[in-house]
């Protein structure tokens, strides 16, 4: 914009402006010399902040890995000793403890909650984006559902599930986790149906495609990567969920976070085993992280930022 307006300046004004700019260039040259030090500082400062920050995040996680790889008694030694790294702890949590069952339960519940919620959420989000169905009030309803503290919902779910014999069952837990994944997905997916895909769809409609055909043949394939990423985020949301699982699951349906939290009390704290188990618990998130980074901002800011 500033460039076009500059061309519109009358010639005399333009000359005066040139003088001013020349003077300014001189000022800038002077400043540049002073800025040599500044430039080094403005390179050093951000990197120092980021290196310190990264270290604070990484070191605890690396320590966790280190404890997981030592044998049980070395794990407790203070000052720390460096023994031979081995995978015994990882083997033991799966052979000596029900961690395999926790894993399976977590995966089943997270997969179930995501798969059932995804088509419903696609319908909601698409209707919001294209037809503004339900207007602002329905959107507010979806947003508020997402903001609810789990402790508010877990009370009625507990009493209702008691009545319906859904306590301590995987279907019950899947239903409970849908209270998280459904509003999350519905809200997140709206952004994937806005923008360019709407233009493509419009073209298809002009060529005689029905609304349904346009959705299924054009929009869904184009939005598929976004929908997949949103699905993976919802999977992790459910994978990490603790309070619902704590209250609504029992010995046979305990998920990984519940298993981890009870692990500490059973037989003192066996930190080597516990570390191995926690490493396994966060592995899916770490593996998925590079694929999800592009979508994470949208997911976190609830679509407020693109």
């Amino acid at each position, binding site marked *: 914009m500033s460039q076009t307006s500059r061309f519109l300046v009358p010639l005399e004004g333009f000359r005066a402006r040139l003088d001013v700019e020349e003077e300014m260039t001189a000022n800038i040259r002077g400043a540049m010399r002073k800025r040599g030090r500044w430039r080094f500082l403005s390179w050093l400062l951000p990197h120092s902040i980021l290196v310190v*920050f990264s270290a604070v995040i990484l070191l605890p996680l690396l320590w966790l890995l280190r404890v997981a790889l030592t044998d049980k008694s070395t794990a407790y030694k*203070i000052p720390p000793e460096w023994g031979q790294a081995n995978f015994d702890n990882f083997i033991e949590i799966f052979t000596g403890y029900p961690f395999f069952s926790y894993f399976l339960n977590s995966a089943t519940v997270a997969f179930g909650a995501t798969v059932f919620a995804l088509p419903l959420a696609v*319908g909601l989000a698409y209707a919001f984006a294209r037809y503004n169905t339900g207007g602002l009030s*329905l959107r507010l309803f979806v947003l508020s559902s997402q*903001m609810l503290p*789990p402790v508010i919902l877990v009370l009625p779910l507990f009493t209702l599930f008691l009545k319906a014999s859904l306590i301590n069952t995987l279907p019950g837990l899947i239903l409970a986790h849908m209270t998280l994944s459904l509003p999350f997905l*519905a809200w997140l997916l709206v952004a994937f149906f806005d923008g360019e895909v709407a233009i493509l769809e419009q073209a298809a409609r002009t060529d005689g495609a029905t*609304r349904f055909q346009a959705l299924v043949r054009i929009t869904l394939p184009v939005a598929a990567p976004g929908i997949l990423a949103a699905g993976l985020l919802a999977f992790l949301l459910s994978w990490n969920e603790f309070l619902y699982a704590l209250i609504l699951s029992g010995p046979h349906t305990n998920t990984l976070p519940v298993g981890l939290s009870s692990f500490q009390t059973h037989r003192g704290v066996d930190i080597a085993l516990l570390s191995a188990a926690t490493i396994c618990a966060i592995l899916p998130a770490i593996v998925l992280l590079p694929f999800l980074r592009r979508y994470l901002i949208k997911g976190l800011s609830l679509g*407020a*930022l693109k």
Partner: protein
Amino acid sequence: MSVATAGGLTLAGRDRRFGLLLTAPGLLALILVITFPLFFTLFTSVHDYTLLTPNYDTFVGLENYQEALDEEYLPDSLWVTTKFVLASVVIEFIIGFAVALSLHATRRFQSIYYLILLAPLLINPVVVGLLWRMLLHSELGIVNYAIGLVGISPVSWLGDADVAFWTVVLTDIWHQVSFMAILLVAGLAALPREPYEAARMDGASTISCFIHITLPLMRPVIAVAILLRLIFAIKTFDIVFIMTKGGPGTATDLISYYIYRAAFFGLDIGRASAMAAGLLVIILALTVYLYRYMNSLK
């Protein structure tokens, strides 16, 4: 929105019908799993429903609400929650902004920093609690050993009431500060270049650029980031459950944990529901405010 250009009520009507058709299953599911249970909470909150006598025979009106307000430790919990939310959101904002500005100013290694920054956000909160419990163990923890090397005497991170509160705050910051940083860095990346170029022409310093250009332009992003974190911080439960169980005393007794205890240790679901209803009002008010603000930006 886009198809109704050809005019005519029938087209718009069909759009409407198609939209409703797509919305209906999801909406029904939301009503089933969220709205219905919420109304059930309100229903429970006016009955004498305990886990010892789990029935709705006795309507008690607002008695549960009255009892909840009279509870000795509820004000403590509300105060602890307020302190916790304010402390963590303010500190997260300051650190998060510093990190966001740094990340925005660097090119080299940016993607590595970014990946490290994202990592805590996807980590299970239970794991975060267990991890820091282990690191901060007063005799066997590596943190006390490390500070001992530089001559600081061991700290009872989770045993001392004042310290425990800040331990929980710092743990939450470790877990959630990236949220703030990522939202702010996305905001910075979307800022227009022109104001900065113009200011540089006028010889403005980096600091005055920041105060007069960056801060005002970033206001909406800052507001959204802070509001979102505020609402999420009120929900905090997991790290308290893992690290302190609300203690020592009531030092870390956040409201979510308080309600959980009232329901499943106090066994009084009716009274817990009354408190949950109160919390619901606060969360809804904040959400409506956030929603209005987000819409006013469009």
